[in-house]
């Protein structure tokens, strides 16, 4: 018995030592990006895109010689979009690697892991969450969002509406989830400031199938614009087709997670004219100001969804923070990396975002309004880039 225990102990020690070796040797000259990526489970459609985006940026950078002599190394683990599994992945990855950057898969994970990030003080994190709550550099000093938070997304939509139709009546339709409720209260105030009238707020229970009751309410509010939030696809198409049957004149709009090209096109005919806010250019944008998208298209000929762009941009911002920290001869600590990230001013993303970006707090408060063109099966820009101050 004792011999078996000894043997297994020895085996574990040897394994640990050899596994640790390459990492330890290379540690001085590499930058590690860890990630709890939802490769399976309900959020896999996003996770697979995010994974590919980070992977491609890392490859592109390493092929070009790395960053100040450092190679990027990406260490992902599947999180299945479950907080416990995400945390386990985080523990595993950070205990086996000297992680500088981390990609988290959800708001819940970002909040759960925050004390750990503060304690470690060695890495900064972004992720799939656009939660308004995370946009607080005091509470979340080592995190950021590679885009506008949900309130800012609403802000961009509301600014557009105020421009198009001053004093317009607006309806908010949202799901009864943390995700859905996120921007509602704060956006009420924003709408008021912009002189808009929030005619009705309709909350739908999570997983609601039939929305006829909600539709009966929405119809009576006679809103000029209806903003959906807290959904991916359903029940948005049903709202739209019912309101078309009723001849309702309201412009439907959505936020980031609804706005992927493939998601909107799933709505079929209901998609026609659907609008929404998107902080990034779409994969197929071939304007001269987007050379990075050209590169992406040469690497991947198939359409890549917006989570891909988000993952790609996240990796780009990680790399830029590392570059600035290393160039200044500073230690790669969380504080220095975050300071470097916040020093980003008028930064050219190669056209992933159509205007130069600055990251002052924890977000990039930029976006553009797009409109669905069902015939072309594409989202086409309906406004200029809107930058919130």
């Amino acid at each position, binding site marked *: 018995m004792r011999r078996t225990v000894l043997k297994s102990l020895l085996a574990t020690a040897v394994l640990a030592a050899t596994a640790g070796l390459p990492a330890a040797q290379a540690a001085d000259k590499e930058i590690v990006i860890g990630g709890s990526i939802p490769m*399976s*489970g*309900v*959020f*896999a*459609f996003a996770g697979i895109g995010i994974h590919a985006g980070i992977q491609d940026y890392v490859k592109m950078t390493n092929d070009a010689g790395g960053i100040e002599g450092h190679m990027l190394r990406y260490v992902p683990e599947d999180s299945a979009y479950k907080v416990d599994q995400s945390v386990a992945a985080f523990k595993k990855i950070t205990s086996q690697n000297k992680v500088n950057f981390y990609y988290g898969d959800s708001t819940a994970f970002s909040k759960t892991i925050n004390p750990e990030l503060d304690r470690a003080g060695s890495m900064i994190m972004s992720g799939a969450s656009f939660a308004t709550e995370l946009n607080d550099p005091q509470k979340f000093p080592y995190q950021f969002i590679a885009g506008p938070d949900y309130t800012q997304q609403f802000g961009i939509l509301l600014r557009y509406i105020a421009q198009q139709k001053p004093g317009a009546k607006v309806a908010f339709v949202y799901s*009864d989830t943390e995700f859905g409720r996120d921007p509602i209260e704060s956006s009420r105030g924003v709408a008021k400031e912009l002189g808009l009238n929030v005619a009705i707020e*309709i*909350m*739908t*229970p999570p*997983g*609601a*199938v*039939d*929305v*006829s*009751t*909600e*539709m*009966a*309410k929405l*119809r*009576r509010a006679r809103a000029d614009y209806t903003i959906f939030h807290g959904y*991916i*696809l*359903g*029940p948005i*198409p*049903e709202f739209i*087709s*019912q309101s078309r*049957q*009723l001849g309702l004149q309201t412009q439907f709009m959505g936020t980031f997670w609804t706005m992927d090209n*493939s*998601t909107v096109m*799933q*709505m*079929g*005919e209901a998609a026609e004219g659907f609008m929404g806010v998107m902080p990034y250019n779409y994969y197929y944008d071939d304007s001269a100001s987007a050379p990075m998208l050209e590169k992406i298209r040469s690497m991947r000929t198939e359409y890549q969804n917006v989570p891909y762009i988000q993952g790609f941009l996240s990796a780009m911002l990680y790399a830029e923070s590392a570059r600035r920290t290393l160039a200044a001869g500073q230690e790669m600590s969380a504080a220095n990396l975050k300071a470097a990230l916040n020093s980003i001013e008028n930064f050219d993303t190669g056209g992933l975002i159509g205007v130069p970006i600055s990251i002052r707090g924890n977000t990039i408060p930029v976006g553009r309004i797009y409109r669905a063109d069902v015939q072309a099966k594409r989202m086409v820009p309906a406004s200029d880039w809107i930058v919130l101050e």
Partner: protein
Amino acid sequence: MDFDWLFLTEIVFAGLGAGGLYALTGLAFVMIYKATRVVNLAIGEMLMIGAYLCFGLATAMNLPMWLAILVAVIGSGMAGALLERVAIRPMLGESPISVFMVTVGLASILVGVVELIWTSEPRRLPEFMPSAPVMIGEAFVPPKVFYGFLVAATLIAVALAVFRFWRGGVALRATASDQQAAYSMGINVPRVFSLSWTVAAMIAAIAGVIVGAVGGISSTMGVFGLSVLVVVIVGGLDSVLGALVAGLLIGVVESLAGGFLGGEYKLLATFMILIVVLLVRPYGLFGTHEIERL
């Protein structure tokens, strides 16, 4: 301020529409429980499989929608029979909680199958119902809800007739009321088990196609089954009539709560009903008293 009667009417219609779907799925649940005494928590996922089969046949294989639905319903029935044979029948005689846990496992396997084949991306079924608005008096009833209700009502009527007059239906009722006696009367009880799972899976598939047509399909649409669980507990696990009444009742109450109080009160209303019914009639509104509780 005048009370908006039209609003109330529309909301009640919407509730009846949703209730029809609850009742239909509840019927599938009760059928399995009645015949086999299995609390089938995978009912929502069986409904999902039906919807996805239909989606796959209509999109990947380009079948016309009516044929896709037909094939999906038959396919689901076969899948139901297979599930019963592979996962449920070997559990005969085991404690109810074990069988219950098997159905929990089944649910997660079915979700896995859907995610493997169709990924977890939410999708839409092709439109197949008429889209002209339906007006009952002055009240607008969304066409999908209206036709969904018609289909549900027709199917329920057919199922009730089958229970009453067809030999297989009578065998099913006999098995439900006394297995031993049914055996001794020469009823092939294992075949009744198989039949009940097959028919329940077929009914669930139809409910799935309607639910999918209204709300879209995704690998999480099985949660619909949870609302149905409430419906059948309120109605009485082994009562077809209970499933019908409770389905409509909960549909309408949810709709009224959502319409007059707000979306956040929908589930609250549902579970209030559940608690009250469990307190007053623990075996459900129309259930048999000696139901074995888990």
